[in-house]
């Protein structure tokens, strides 16, 4: 098979003078090899030799004295003449195609980038993240973190597990920033504790330092290049000492190279796990502490199903019967983490969703199709113009094949030209693509080669596909009929053309509906009443205990200004993170297992600063003594789950039996402490005097500049040695939906481009169709037709097409958008207005597109047009 192909290639391309004896030589060599190697190897060697033979002195001259090459040159020349002769038509074609290509290449780059995450680790296929499922009542919560004891236990007890690494996000486990200082330079950074096996499991490159030893000793730290530059400038960071939270001295033992490949983990500061100091309530042998991200490397060929069973046994061995009943592990393949992982709790690293890539791929393919349809449409519509040319060619002896070939060369030329323009545009704008896409494009080099090959192949295929139908159509003509000038053969009402146009309109309508729906949903999310007042609220993080110790002085200092309404604080920052505890009622006849609920440790005046409504009982107040029992304020969801009509005064216990015992003192209106993709969960607030990680400053009317000035002054008085950080609460909330907004903007753009391409195609088509109908219009006018009736004559087909497209497209749009909306717990209901607006926009746009030509036709002077008849 391979040899046959190679022979064919040689015969086609080798100079005929040399062919016989070269072929003989090859044959002889081949026969000697046959007995020594396998058949396949011999054939591959043969092909290799043949390919090496294809060099200038031995091949047929490409452009010399050769009929076919002459013809090819001639075809190219003719195609170029066609391009330049009909400039507006060529412009429409090339503009549409190059826009389509540009869009699809940009989308391809984005999707390739998304798919390339964590594909480069050497042990990638055998690496899994140990994830945790916890049953709570009927629900199962899934966490991507797990217990610290699991990794070591599995490596020593399960033969399938070869290696592990545990990561932990900083002191708190939740990614709070920690203060890192070198001399007088200090910055807040998120640090990650990692086992010494980190560089065995993942392939991150070290610019300096030994990957085997850099995380072995306590107080070793590996930093990224950026961090190194921030602290040490150009000096060599190795061996330098950094101070963590003013108490630990860390020594730099490695510098991470700037990543050139995508990974969901993007560590900036890695501190050796051996130096990690667990809090008093837990240690690294715990099976009940869920804040460690554990990655396991399995032996090659390990049976994952069997392993799952063994892991369950391990849980049973190490935890109580009740706990092992509720706990189970899941193995998440490393390569799927970025696009497919889901967590009910805190996660680590970057995550995305495959849905973005899927939607964009569909849009990209559609845009590509639309732009190709333009080409086919315009070509077939204009085919009658070519009748004479092709008729004469045929009479002069062109074969059908020749004409087909010529027309294909034309199509290829247009498409290749457009492809070059698209590539040029992208090459020029590549630097700004990152910003535009909202990610950093890190495309591996091997992907570039395949991308280029696939693009070349696609350009060829598209050229063939969009060229073949018009070419077949034209080459089929009877030359005599064509020359007689009865150009009705191809029909001005080609069914295919109608179909393609309808498809384009249908797609345009679907995309418009999608765009409007996404926009409306995003607006809805932005305007949704969150249950608290986010206006005029400034939020400041207090990053460490030293800062938090100053909270009350800071509060007093800020509140001494008259424009400040209230200063409150809480453990959390309203961006959707929270812990959760099992809440058990302590009243008689209650369910002893309880329910998992979100917990929110708050400080005095948090509820007041955010204007959260208390519907029953009271808020926290300093006039009530803090005694040994806790005071709880629950939200409405928690109230309905606990099932009391009047929960005030009832006793509950948090964190299981023997946990935090106390009394419910109030019920708060539901407010959104999580993103709007989630329903409001049952939640319990309790008072903690040290819960001041986030300070909330509520101002009465004042301008932002003045407000910031006042607060900064207070900050400088109380915490002069720390950088002043702040954010307005509404900005902070909007940031949560940033990925959605970015995505919405992308969809907007691509829909606009798709509609635009459709419009320019329509413009070309209508311009041409009207020029064909000009005589008819003139005759009608002479016979007394009104301008209105002529306008209707010219546009009614178009209207009908759009209506059909709407009938087909709208249901698709409806089901598609409903699917997307369903991913939000709080969403708009499908709105008839959106569909109407989309339809009207398409009508208006297409009428606008064609109006100039139609008006010109309608207002024409029949005498001029009919003069030549």
């Amino acid at each position, binding site marked *: 098979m391979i040899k046959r192909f190679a022979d064919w290639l040689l015969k086609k391309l080798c100079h005929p003078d040399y062919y*016989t004896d070269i072929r003989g030589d090859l044959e*002889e060599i081949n026969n000697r090899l046959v007995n020594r190697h396998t058949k396949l190897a011999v054939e591959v060697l043969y092909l*290799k030799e043949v390919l090496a033979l294809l060099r200038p002195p*031995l091949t047929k001259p490409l452009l010399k004295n050769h009929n076919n090459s002459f013809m090819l040159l001639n075809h190219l020349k003719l195609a170029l003449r066609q391009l330049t002769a009909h400039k507006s038509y060529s412009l429409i074609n090339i503009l549409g195609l190059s826009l389509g290509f540009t869009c699809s290449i940009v989308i391809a780059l984005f999707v390739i980038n998304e798919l390339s995450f964590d594909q480069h680790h050497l042990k990638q296929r055998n690496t899994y993240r140990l994830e945790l499922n916890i049953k709570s009542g009927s629900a199962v919560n899934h966490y991507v973190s797990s217990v610290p004891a699991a990794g070591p236990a599995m490596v020593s007890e399960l033969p399938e597990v070869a290696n592990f690494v545990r990561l932990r996000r900083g002191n708190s486990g939740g990614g709070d920033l920690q203060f890192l200082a070198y001399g007088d330079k200090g910055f807040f950074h998120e640090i990650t504790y990692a086992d010494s096996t980190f560089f065995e499991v993942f392939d991150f490159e070290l610019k300096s330092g030994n990957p085997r030893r850099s995380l072995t000793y306590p107080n070793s730290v590996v930093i990224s290049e950026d961090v190194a530059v921030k602290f040490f400038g150009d000096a060599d960071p190795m061996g330098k000492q950094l101070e963590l939270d003013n108490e630990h001295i860390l020594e730099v033992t490695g510098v991470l190279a700037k990543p050139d490949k995508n990974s969901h983990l993007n560590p900036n500061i890695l501190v050796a796990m051996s130096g990690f100091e667990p809090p008093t309530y837990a240690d690294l042998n715990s099976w009940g502490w869920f804040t460690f991200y554990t990655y396991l490397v399995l032996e090659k060929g390990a049976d994952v199903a069997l392993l799952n069973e063994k892991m369950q046994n391990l849980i049973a061995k190490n935890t109580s019967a009740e706990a092992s009943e509720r706990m189970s592990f899941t193995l998440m393949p490393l390569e799927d983490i970025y696009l497919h992982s889901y967590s009910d709790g805190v996660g680590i690293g970057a995550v995305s969703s495959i849905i973005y890539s899927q939607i964009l791929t569909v849009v990209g393919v559609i845009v590509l199709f639309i732009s190709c349809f333009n080409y086919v449409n315009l070509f077939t519509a204009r085919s009658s113009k070519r009748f004479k040319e092709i008729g004469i060619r045929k009479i002069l002896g062109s074969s059908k094949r020749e004409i087909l070939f010529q027309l294909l060369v034309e199509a290829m030329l247009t498409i290749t030209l457009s492809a070059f323009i698209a590539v040029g545009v992208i090459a020029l704008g590549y630097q700004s693509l990152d910003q535009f896409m909202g990610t950093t494009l890190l495309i591996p080099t091997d992907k570039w080669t395949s991308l280029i090959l696939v693009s070349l192949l696609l350009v060829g295929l598209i050229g063939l596909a969009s060229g073949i139908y018009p070419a077949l159509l034209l080459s089929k003509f009877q030359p005599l009929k064509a020359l007689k000038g009865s150009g009705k053969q191809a029909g001005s009402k080609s069914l295919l053309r109608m179909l393609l146009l309808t498809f384009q309109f249908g797609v345009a309508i679907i995309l418009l509906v999608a765009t409007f729906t996404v926009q409306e949903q995003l607006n809805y999310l932005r305007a949704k009443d969150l249950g608290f007042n986010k206006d005029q609220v400034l939020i400041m993080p207090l990053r460490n205990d030293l800062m938090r110790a100053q909270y009350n002085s800071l509060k007093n200092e800020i509140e001494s200004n008259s424009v400040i309404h209230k200063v409150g604080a809480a453990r959390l920052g309203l961006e959707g993170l929270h812990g959760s505890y099992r809440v058990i009622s302590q009243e008689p006849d209650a369910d002893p297992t309880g329910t998992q609920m979100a917990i929110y440790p708050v400080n005095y005046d948090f509820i007041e600063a955010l204007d959260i409504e208390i519907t029953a009982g009271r808020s926290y107040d300093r006039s009530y003594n803090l005694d040994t029992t806790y005071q709880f304020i629950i939200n409405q969801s928690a109230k309905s789950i606990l099932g009391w009509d009047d929960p005030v005064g009832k006793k509950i216990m948090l964190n299981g039996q023997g946990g935090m015992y106390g009394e419910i003192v109030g019920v708060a209106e539901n407010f959104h402490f999580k993103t709007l993709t989630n329903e409001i969960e049952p939640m319990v607030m309790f008072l903690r005097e040290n819960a001041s990680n986030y300070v909330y400053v509520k101002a009465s009317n004042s301008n932002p500049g003045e407000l910031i000035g006042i607060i900064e002054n207070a900050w400088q008085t109380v915490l002069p040695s720390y950088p002043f950080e702040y954010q307005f609460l509404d900005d902070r909330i909007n940031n949560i939906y940033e990925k959605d907004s970015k995505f919405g903007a992308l969809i907007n753009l691509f829909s606009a481009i798709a509609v635009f391409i459709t419009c320019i195609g329509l413009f070309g088509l209508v311009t041409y169709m009207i020029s064909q109908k000009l005589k008819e219009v003139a005759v009608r006018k002479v016979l007394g037709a009104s301008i209105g009736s002529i306008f209707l004559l010219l546009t009614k087909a178009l209207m009908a097409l759009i209506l059909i497209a709407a009938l087909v497209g709208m249901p698709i749009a409806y089901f598609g958008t409903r699917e997307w909306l369903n991913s939000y717990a709080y969403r708009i209901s499908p709105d008839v207005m959106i569909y109407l607006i989309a339809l009207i926009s398409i009508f208006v746009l297409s009428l606008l597109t064609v109006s100039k030509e139609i008006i010109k036709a309608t207002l024409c002077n029949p005498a001029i047009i009919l003069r030549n008849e």
Partner: protein
Amino acid sequence: MKKYQLGEFEEVVLLTVGVLYDEAYGVAIKEEIETRLQRKVSVGALQSALRRMEQKGYLESREGEATEQRGGRPKRYFNITAYGKKALEYSKDVRLELWNAIPKVALEPKMS
């Protein structure tokens, strides 16, 4: 070397054709070079060198016998022409001249 253009590989091929004298056809030349010089030669490289030199006039060729081994295709034997021989001699002379011009010291092994 302006007078006779002869690349390094071309020179090797030309010399080998001389070595094989009457038996110099494609496969034989290829194998001779491969065994003597211990380097891989592709048919493409060899044939393009042969044809190039034939065009320059360093080589001439004649059709030989056809064998079963070659699928019934005739061999093409190459011979060095007088002009080719001149080119070889010229290139040898140039080299010798250069060798002789090297000062003795430059070739002695350094002791450092």
